[in-house]
């Protein structure tokens, strides 16, 4: 291999900031190639995809409403990933939160009170947290891999929602469409400005501030970091790994649940078989692009919301597939992960190297390091 990695003596501060920017540039460049390959003019395609959606107030509001669930879920996942808990089932927690919160407008649709919305939001958070508690319980009690269990629960939650809206929760006056009844006025999160941007955006900003303070200024935040870097070191400090697993899953589950009920109440305004274009998975990209930092997550959430919006715009203006958004998102995560190497390592080009040197003599043994 002509490429060799040299470990830097310490983290590169410059690269920590530059790496997401390099990653975004590379994604845009790859996007240009992709557009050219599909027979579109890359410059105008990129304009329609990434710039045009930012040019009107209407679409800016749309951007914020799509960023809302991404940021809410993303900050929770950041806490999970820092503490080494791999919750990749946020999509399921989002769905379950939406279902739990919707019980009020569906069973008590005539109830008109200022209590309706706060109750819905709390129910959503409880629903999401409860669903997130399942993989945490299985991990701490039985040592079951949380990646696989949390992911399997996504499919289960989706099927459960599907059953609800086609079965017991189907709108009695809805001509057999698989939809719940429309939420009443009291159960709809008000818009902030009259457009698509609703109160969920405020929740997202609050979540960012609270988690930022939690991580930077509290003992709990310190615990999150210590356990994430070395569970053993955390145990010596008296921190419980099991309690941290619950904390991370309950927090991220609650935030995902809030994202679910806020989006259903503020944007969809009823339950449908599909209530998310994959927000729970895209939020994983958001968390990494934001470098697992709450403020970074806020910025990254807006960027990824733009890929959704650009995808819709490009479909209308150029007739390209709406699947393009997911391709962009996947590429972005690849480039982010690849560029992060630059923070810890330098590259060196090696002209030629002999065959892999076997070092049988102990004198030739070269130090080798594990990278966690």
């Amino acid at each position: 291999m002509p490429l060799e990695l040299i470990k830097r003596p310490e983290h590169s501060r410059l690269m920590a900031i530059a790496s997401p920017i390099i990653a975004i540039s590379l994604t845009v460049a790859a996007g240009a190639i992709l557009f050219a390959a599909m027979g579109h003019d890359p410059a105008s395609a990129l304009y329609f995809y990434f710039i045009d959606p930012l040019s009107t107030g209407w679409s800016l509001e749309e951007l914020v409403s799509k960023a809302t669930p991404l940021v809410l879920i993303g900050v929770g996942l950041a806490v999970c990933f820092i503490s080494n808990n791999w919750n990749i089932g946020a999509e399921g927690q989002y769905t379950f939160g939406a279902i739990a919160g919707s019980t009020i407008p569906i069973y008590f649709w005539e109830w008109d009170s200022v209590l309706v919305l706060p109750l819905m939001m709390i129910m959503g958070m409880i629903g999401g947290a409860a669903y997130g508690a399942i993989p945490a319980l299985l991990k701490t009690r039985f040592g079951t891999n949380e990646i696989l269990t949390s992911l399997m629960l996504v499919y289960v939650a989706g099927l459960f929602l599907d059953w609800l809206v086609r079965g017991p929760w189907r709108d009695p006056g809805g001509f057999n469409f698989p939809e719940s009844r429309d939420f009443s006025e009291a159960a709809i999160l008000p818009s902030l400005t009259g457009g698509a941007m609703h109160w969920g955006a405020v929740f997202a900003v609050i979540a960012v501030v609270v988690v930022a303070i939690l991580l930077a200024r509290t003992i709990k935040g310190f615990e999150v970091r210590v356990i994430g870097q070395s569970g053993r070191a955390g145990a010596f400090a008296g921190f419980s790994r099991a309690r941290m697993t619950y904390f991370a899953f309950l927090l991220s589950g609650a935030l995902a649940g809030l994202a679910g009920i806020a989006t259903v109440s503020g944007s969809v305004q009823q339950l449908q078989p599909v209530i998310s274009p994959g927000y729970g998975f895209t939020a994983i990209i958001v968390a990494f692009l934001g470098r697992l930092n709450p403020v970074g997550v806020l910025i990254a959430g807006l960027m990824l919301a733009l890929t959704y919006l650009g995808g819709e715009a490009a479909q209308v203006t150029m007739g390209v597939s709406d699947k393009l958004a997911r391709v962009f998102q996947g590429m972005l995560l690849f480039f982010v992960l690849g560029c992060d190497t630059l923070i810890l390592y330098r590259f060196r080009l090696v002209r030629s190297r002999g065959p892999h040197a076997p070092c049988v003599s102990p004198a030739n043994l070269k130090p080798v390091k594990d990278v966690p």
Partner: protein
Amino acid sequence: MTTVEAILLTVITAATPLMIAAIGELVVERSGVLNLGVEGMMIMGAVMGFAGAQWTGNAYLGVVIGILAGAAFSLLFAFLTLTLVANQVATGLALTLLGLGLSGMIGESFVGQPGIKLDPIVIPGLSAIPFLGPVLFSQDLIVYASFALIFGVSWFLFRTRAGLTLRSVGDNHVSAHSLGIAVIRVRYLAVLFGGACAGLAGAQLSVVYTPQWIENMTAGRGWIALALVVFASWRPWRIVAGAYLFGAVTIAQFHAQAIGLKIPSQFLSSLPYLATILVLVLISRNRRLTLINTPAALGKSFVAER
């Protein structure tokens, strides 16, 4: 053909992709690499397998193209995690997300098109055996290949020097390196093999199981395959048991509907996922078994300092 034979045939068809994807991932994990991108490589195999069959008019060529697509896709993962030492869990997720998006885009024009199905190969003589014949010896090539793969991998890992090398890399890459083993090269090859297997498993879905292209048609099978590797505690032959168990669970839902059970279809459809969780819990409860069998360097990156 009796009903029992018909049920067994569908179980085999449902179990085969799980078995192939899982045996590929088993080799990857035995080399110490955790590739969570099985779902992504599988869906790429499915869409390219279907596309290949359409372009060439030949289902076998389609399968070959599916295999190549899975392998090519796995190289992306290998480059990131092995050369650039990126986090394996995150990169695997990235591979899955990209695969689901890319396959949806590539396959958009194929939606609703009838596909070309792989014909079964009836083995003369053996297929005439009552009951066993039609079930075991009139299958398509991929079913035979799935058993050949299990046998081959089992032999390779535990009966050859190269297999020992691969396992040593997965258990202790530092020692392996100091013995002069090219750790990264071994892992590249293992990941590539896993990708090819996932591609084949995906192609089976779009060329045999349901010969058409449906978006997200893998429906979590890549993840179930990952769970199967844990279930099998990294032993090749146990994958057969696991895959057939899950094949049976998948098929049971269709038959339950056919009998007219009054259970909503969504609950039956969630059975394979719930069964996966249950099986994982049962296996991981026995910590000693898991600890002994898990490749010790699983998921750890390796950089040789010079």
